[in-house]
């Protein structure tokens, strides 16, 4: 009989904490976006400034996600299957973006690709700007979202083992055929999970892109920078409308992740 009040007490504490720190803040994005009615929302959503910012975010994401996915699967194969030399050393660098402040990532890119940086001067002399321009923003997006596919695929590759691959090899299948027909299908949910996390990180990146983009309104302003700049210009509705778009994407990502985890459970190899 004593256990009941303890149970509901703990549930109440947990839910109150989540409500205060997560549910109310995220809910408030919707409320604040529509506070002045529907018109400011549609006005922002159709404004050139917002559409351009969204377009830049999309370009950075669409370049970063495929590259990081190919790299992630390749790197995981090298680490787990080929046990390449120096794998611990290289894995440290593949994990490093998670331990770095986004601002530090931005700074390190400026030091390489800025006009006074290691390579940036040469590119500048040849008419190519990298920092304060799209290439730098793409590099920053790739950097911050690099670890996720690797981290999801490595444990799955270890878990599925090599029996089926070895059997296929004995039967004479070529390495590329083994990869496409056996390895890839067995790691597909790990890859999918990694791709979703990479996409979420790329769409939502702020700090690193803020450093390398120069935050020029209408030129190098991504969706997250748009949120910040509208807020500091006291255009609250515009800031919250853009924030709402980003939050809705985040919710879709979370739902997709939960569906994939459930699918993995059914498939039998739980992470």
């Amino acid at each position, binding site marked *: 009989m004593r*256990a009941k009040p*303890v149970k509901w007490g703990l*549930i109440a504490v*947990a839910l109150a904490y*989540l409500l205060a*720190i*997560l*549910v109310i*803040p*995220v809910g*408030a*994005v919707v409320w*604040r976006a529509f506070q002045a009615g529907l018109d400011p929302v549609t006005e922002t959503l159709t404004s050139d400034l917002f559409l351009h910012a969204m377009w830049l975010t999309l370009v950075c994401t669409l370049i970063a996600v495929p590259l990081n996915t190919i*790299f992630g699967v*390749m*790197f995981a194969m*090298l680490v787990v299957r*080929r046990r390449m030399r120096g794998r611990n050393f*290289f894995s440290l*660098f*593949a994990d490093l*973006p998670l*331990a*770095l*402040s*986004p*601002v*530090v*990532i931005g*700074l*390190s*890119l*400026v*030091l*390489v690709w800025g006009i006074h940086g*290691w390579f940036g001067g040469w590119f500048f002399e040849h008419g190519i700007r990298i920092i304060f321009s799209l290439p730098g923003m793409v*590099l920053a997006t*790739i*950097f911050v979202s*690099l670890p996720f596919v690797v981290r999801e695929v490595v444990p799955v590759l270890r878990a599925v083992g090599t029996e089926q691959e070895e059997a296929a090899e004995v039967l004479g299948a070529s390495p*590329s055929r083994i990869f496409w027909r056996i390895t890839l299908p067995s790691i597909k949910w790990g890859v999918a999970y990694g791709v979703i*996390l990479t996409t*979420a990180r790329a*769409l*939502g*990146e*702020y*700090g690193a892109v803020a*450093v390398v983009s120069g935050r020029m309104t209408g030129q190098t302003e991504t969706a*997250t920078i748009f*949120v*910040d700049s509208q*807020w500091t210009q006291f255009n*609250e509705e515009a800031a919250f409308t853009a*924030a709402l778009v*980003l*939050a809705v994407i*985040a919710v879709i990502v*979370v*739902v997709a992740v939960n569906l994939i985890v459930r699918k993995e459970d059914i498939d039998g190899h739980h992470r």
Partner: protein
Amino acid sequence: MRRRGQGALSLGLAVGYLGLIVMIPMAALAWAGLSQGAASFWAAITEPETLAALQLTLAISAIVAIVNAVMGTLIAWVLVRYRFPGRGIVDGLIDLPFALPTIVAGLTLLAIYGPNSPFGVNIGFTRVGIAVALLLVTLPFVVRAVQPLLREADLEAEQAAASLGAGPLYVFRRIIFPGIRPGILSGSGLAFARAIGEFGAVVLIAGNLPFQTKMSSVDIFGLIEQDKPDAAAAVSLTLLVISLASLALFDFLERRSAREAG
């Protein structure tokens, strides 16, 4: 022969990509921070405003890690051990802070707990506000690290202890806690490292007053804008070393407590 050629090609591509994206920029950061000599490195990180920001960052991150250890464990416990309406939705919500852009998190916290709060609480431009923003973005770490360990916990040992007359607190301290301690440690360690470097979530709500609410990431951003890349690199390296050292320490503690738990 063909196989070896393919292996060398993928090795070259993967290492080349990692080198271009991560390793060369890290080398440039280390060079900018260290090539200026020990004296100016030291001068950069002991500059009063910078030092105050570093101290504030470490103190708030430590508090955030501790609150996460307690609340994260409690939330994981509630989600694993209890059945209540809406449990599945709450469980799914835990991942939201990882997907939500940090600037959105900071913006919305300022809107509801800032100067124009509809609840009448104003923690905008205070250290409490910074801590709340960091608690939001680090929420999943401990919860997600403790949940699987709680699911695997030995229920029979708990029941045996209870039937022998052990109280619930005793059972928790002696039987449950040792099993989930590795998860609490690794989750708190990740939360601490994340809090140290966080920028987007704090930049709006902190107000960034020097010596009061200015965090190190904001300090570095300011140094870059003032065109002081070497000083920014010195502070960045300090932050990176603290972050890596704390991750290594928590990893060591986690392994040790996992061994003790058997």
